[in-house]
């Protein structure tokens, strides 16, 4: 996406529209997501996990990459969505789509309420408050083990067939289709959001939060809105995880999960919508390949990777690719 001077016959609207067009690389990406059932049917479980985690990372990108809100506790909303779906099923209602809807509402409500706190702070105080909120929820869920099932997790989660017809099969085809469809739909919505005036406002907040009130922007309200939307999406991702794996335990709202998704997003590159998806894929495939290793070694390599990414590739994999593409273009 170059930004050269256009002394131009192209009108501003046309120029902007050109920015919003679908690129061939995007189309290739989505076509590629259709490959796993064909090429790697043994890995469909992992593929579903990647789609779901990618969706979770996408929700974090909306607040971190596009709005500049650093959150160390985003798993709270993922976990609320996951537990809502799980509890609904345990209490007798296993219909997946309405389960998603109710989980979205629950996570969104919690997101909306906490957004009033979040929108008031910046810098270290904000980071600590998001961390604190996540830890409080984790501790509360731990205490309420009679409801949440504690570390063993909920028992008796069973997901009904979609539309009453499509069963969740043992191979994982349905799960993957379900997760991928959810991811794609929400991706489309997020893409529209980014290209809307609201997306521009969010970038304004990220670029210069101080200036926003001076142009008449109700910054706090904008932040509350995007935070609620991100919470809803995270909740949907969590619910999908519960429904496709038919388990849910405390780790869904733990600090580890908040930290992991942050690492994935940074790895892929923030503020590009695809960063979370790419990062989730790379991270989880790598973790799967190295899962034979002692977990200690895993953290050694992830630590090294983080240091390397921050030092050499601060815009993540996608940032590096786009830099590479620009260099290539400059030569030709």
């Amino acid at each position, binding site marked *: 996406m170059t*930004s*050269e*001077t*256009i*002394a131009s016959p192209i009108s*501003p*609207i046309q*120029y*902007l*529209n050109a920015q*919003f067009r679908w690129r061939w690389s995007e189309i290739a990406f989505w076509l590629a997501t259709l490959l796993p059932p064909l090429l790697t049917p043994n890995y469909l479980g992992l593929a579903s996990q990647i789609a779901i985690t990618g969706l979770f990372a996408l929700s974090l990108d909306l607040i971190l990459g596009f709005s500049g809100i650093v959150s160390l506790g985003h798993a709270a909303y993922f976990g609320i969505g996951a537990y809502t779906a799980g509890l609904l099923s345990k209490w007798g209602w296993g219909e997946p789509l309405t389960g998603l809807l109710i989980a979205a509402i629950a996570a969104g409500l919690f997101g909306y309420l906490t957004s009033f706190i979040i929108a008031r702070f910046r810098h270290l105080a904000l980071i600590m408050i998001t961390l604190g909120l996540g830890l409080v929820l984790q501790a509360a869920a731990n205490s309420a083990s009679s409801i949440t099932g504690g570390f063993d997790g909920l028992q008796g989660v069973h997901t009904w067939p979609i539309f009453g017809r499509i069963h969740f099969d043992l191979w994982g085809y349905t799960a993957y289709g379900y997760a991928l469809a959810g991811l794609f739909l929400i991706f489309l919505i997020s893409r*529209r*959001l980014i*290209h*809307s*005036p*609201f*997306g*521009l*406002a969010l*970038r*304004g907040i990220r*670029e*210069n939060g*101080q*200036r*926003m*009130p*001076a*142009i*008449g*922007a*109700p*910054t706090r*309200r*904008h932040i509350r*809105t995007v935070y609620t*939307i991100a919470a809803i999406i995270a909740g949907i991702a969590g619910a999908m995880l519960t429904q496709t794996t038919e388990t849910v335990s405390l780790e869904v709202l733990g600090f580890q999960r908040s930290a992991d998704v942050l690492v994935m997003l940074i790895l892929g590159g923030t503020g590009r919508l695809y960063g979370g998806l790419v990062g989730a894929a790379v991270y989880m495939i790598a973790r799967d390949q190295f899962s034979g290793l002692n977990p200690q070694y895993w953290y050694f390599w992830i630590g090294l990777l983080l240091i390397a990414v921050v030092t050499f590739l601060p815009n993540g994999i996608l940032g590096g690719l786009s830099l590479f593409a620009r260099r290539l273009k400059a030569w030709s």
Partner: protein
Amino acid sequence: MSETALATRGLYKSFGSLVVAADIEIDLPAGGRYALIGPNGAGKTTLINLMTGMLRPDSGRILLGDTDITALEPDERVRRGLVRTFQINSLFPHLTALESVTLAVCERRRVAETWWRKLTAYRDEIDEAYDILAALTLGPVCHRPTRELAYGQQRLLEIALALAAKPKVLLLDEPAAGVPRDESKDLFAAIAGLSRDITVLFIEHDMDLVFRFASRVIVMVSGRILVEGTPQQIAADPQVRAVYLGKTRPGSREGTAA
């Protein structure tokens, strides 16, 4: 009959023992051009911060037209027409000039929260933004990211952002600050071209600008207003000369502008 566009009554603000504003009484009739001058540390930017709501006064009131805006948040004051620019550019580095001004226009028109429609559906807003930029000679560079613009162009973008909010009262904080001589021509033209519907108060150290554009000058020293008057009166005032203008003779600057 000109009404008062902006007024302050008994504005007072201190940080512990440091008094940054005391007994500030200002009346700005609509449509005029006013300069606020004073030595560094006099409290000029502080006064602007108080007027725009970035700082809360310990006591006193601020009136925009007939409305008491003392309790309003900064963005609400902007929506009522009280807009400022910053002494040090406060822009959006990675947004293009057009995107920045379009954002300001969308915020003014209250459409900035519509996340379900593409930005390009808002033709009027984008056209309006482009027109503002074009009027300030920034049309050809409107698709450049802000951080790639020359400093003088960035200063103009500061003004463009302010104009996008359709101000009734415009507070310019040292608009010419840091602008090299060869780039200041466009800036001066922009300020001269401001509509007479807008009341303008500018802080300046550049006496060229003050004498060219201001009909009234307010002099601040150590948080208080020392004296007010026409540029000629101020230039001749011995108190002002002693405190601020130094020992140069009044009127010796005419005809030496860039």
